[in-house]
């Protein structure tokens, strides 16, 4: 067993780290305050290939592996968790639906521009009354000739404020519940599709997260993904892999907070010495780093399993459950180490602690993760 990154992965990590430090760090706080994601930054991320990391070069992707994608998620989220989720929803929720279930024509037409850096995608499953219980989706798609007519509303669609491509889940057969759900590829400019303002949130405020309404949206039949009734399976497959990205985002948030705290405790003096000389500081940071390392190893294990086409779903659920809880605990400890300053907006640990909370909620709550894990254990 070898826990080392390859030389290529190390160089990728250096690319992501340099990029995040140089391009994201100077604007992360401002984006959070403005509750708006910089489109200039999106363009820069597209240029380095950040939106197509684990996808085949044959379709315009970058040809790297899932593990490399987790390195990007960690390095970006260390500096700005909003960038993490922007990449993640595109890369591990939207694109897999087309990559794994799309026809050759759909891949050429819709996947290629998403992974070669021309377009950004989003994923619309959650509804005002259908969260963890995704089978409660009420949005409908009625077939009329060569079209489907989509009606309904979706909630918390990340990236929807600026995304070009929308994967939308709707019922083609209301009588069958989740087995009557189908997945469609929509364009932002289709008549009847409208996006709300950015929803005011506690954390990851820079990320675009809106309600999307679909009113008699006429979608050509060739935009159905897979077959009618396969929608639930497609959504669950995407979410199963997406959790590896959220695990990596959580590791990044936590590591970023530790890095900030480490700097601070070496400078801050109390009682005549810098506070890193106190054993409480040393032990707290030791505990934090140990937990983050454990979470990172779980993320890498899940990513490696996905790269090797093994059954990764329970591993992904475990890494997300553990890493998201570690992110919350570690950011809370780091705010405490910075004392009153940790509570101030001027210090990035304040933002990290707010950002961490969502990792226990989205792409499956911690409770949903426990259902998946216990299910895989056949409890």
């Amino acid at each position, binding site marked *: 067993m070898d826990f080392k990154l390859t*030389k290529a992965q190390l160089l990728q990590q250096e690319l992501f780290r340099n990029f995040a430090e140089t391009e994201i760090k100077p604007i992360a706080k401002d984006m959070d305050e403005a509750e708006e994601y910089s489109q200039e930054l999106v363009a820069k991320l597209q240029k380095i290939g950040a939106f197509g990391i684990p996808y085949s070069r044959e379709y315009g992707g970058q040809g790297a592996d899932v593990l*490399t994608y987790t390195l990007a998620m960690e390095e970006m989220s260390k500096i700005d968790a909003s960038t993490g989720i922007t990449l993640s929803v595109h890369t591990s929720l939207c694109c897999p639906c087309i990559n794994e279930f799309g026809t050759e024509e759909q891949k050429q037409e819709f996947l290629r521009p998403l992974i070669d850096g021309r377009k950004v995608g989003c994923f619309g499953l959650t509804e005002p009354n259908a969260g963890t219980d995704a089978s409660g989706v009420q949005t409908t798609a009625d077939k009329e000739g060569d079209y489907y007519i989509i009606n309904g509303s979706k909630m918390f669609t990340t990236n929807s404020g600026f995304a070009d491509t929308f994967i939308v889940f709707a019922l083609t057969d209301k009588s069958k519940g989740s087995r009557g759900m189908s997945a469609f590829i929509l364009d932002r400019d289709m008549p009847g599709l409208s996006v709300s303002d950015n929803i005011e949130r506690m954390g990851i405020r820079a990320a675009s997260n809106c309600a999307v309404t679909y009113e008699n949206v006429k979608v050509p039949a060739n935009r159905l993904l897979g077959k009618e009734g396969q929608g639930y399976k497609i959504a669950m497959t995407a979410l199963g892999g997406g959790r590896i990205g959220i695990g990596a985002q959580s590791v990044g948030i936590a590591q970023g907070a530790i890095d900030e705290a480490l700097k601070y405790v070496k400078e801050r003096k109390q009682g005549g010495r810098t506070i890193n000389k106190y054993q409480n500081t040393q032990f707290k940071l030791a505990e934090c780093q140990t937990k983050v390392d454990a979470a990172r190893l779980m993320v890498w294990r899940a990513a490696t399993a996905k790269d090797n086409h093994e059954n990764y779903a329970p591993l992904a659920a475990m890494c997300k459950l553990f890493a998201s809880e570690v992110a919350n605990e570690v950011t809370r400890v780091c705010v405490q180490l910075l004392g009153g300053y940790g509570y101030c907006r001027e210090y990035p640990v304040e933002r990290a602690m707010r950002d961490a909370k969502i990792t226990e909620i989205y792409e499956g709550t911690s409770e949903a993760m426990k259902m998946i894990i216990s299910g895989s254990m056949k409890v």
Partner: protein
Amino acid sequence: MKIVVCIKQVPDTVEVKIDPKTGTLIRDGVPSIINPDDKTGIEAALQLKEKMAGSTVTVVSMGPPQADVALREALAMGCDEAILVSGREFGGSDTYATSGILAAALNTLEYDIIITGRQAIDGDTAQVGPQIGEKIGVPQVSYVEEIREVAEDHVVVKRQFEDGYHIIKIKTPCLLTAIAELAQPRYMSVKGVVEAYEKEIKILGFEDLKDNLELDMIGLKGSPTNVYQSFTKEVKGAGTILKDLSAEQAVKAIVDKLEEKFII
């Protein structure tokens, strides 16, 4: 157009210190980077390639096998080929011996423009680039801050000078040394890194270059330089800026200062 860029892997001097006892760099735990002026050179070469269809950029570095990482980074930025000049015989070379080895390596390649960085942040000599130019016998311009024109048989460049600049038309093949103002280096790309590790880095050792190299011209033996002492420069105090003064007030302020210091 065939463009060759010479790069050096250096310790990141932002994080490096000098051992006060031995006078040498403490390299332990210090990350290695592509020398910044050389990275500028890579960017300038890639921009030329984008302008001139059918051009290629070859990147060359002399160093130990670990310098491979710097070459992979250059490939990931978009260079086409990489060559590592490496061998035990080359160890201990000063700038004079190094430029001889690199000149011998360049003699095995085709080139229209050779770009090097002005100087490396570890030695700060600014000698290797110009010495290569002399040894392979091509015209050279150092301190290039802009490449204004590129044609079949010449380039027009802007050379930074202490009190201004020079616009110089130079016949190709030629050698240019780059300063930071020339270009802002691009990032690698994810695909670039993937492909950089799929390519092979060509290694040139002494055996490959021996037709153009004598053993006593390289390594410690071929290096006339002896470093007497290395030290960290002491930081001078910051200057004073006097603003919004009339000509008369300015003259008085300067004369007062000079008198205060007993200079006049």
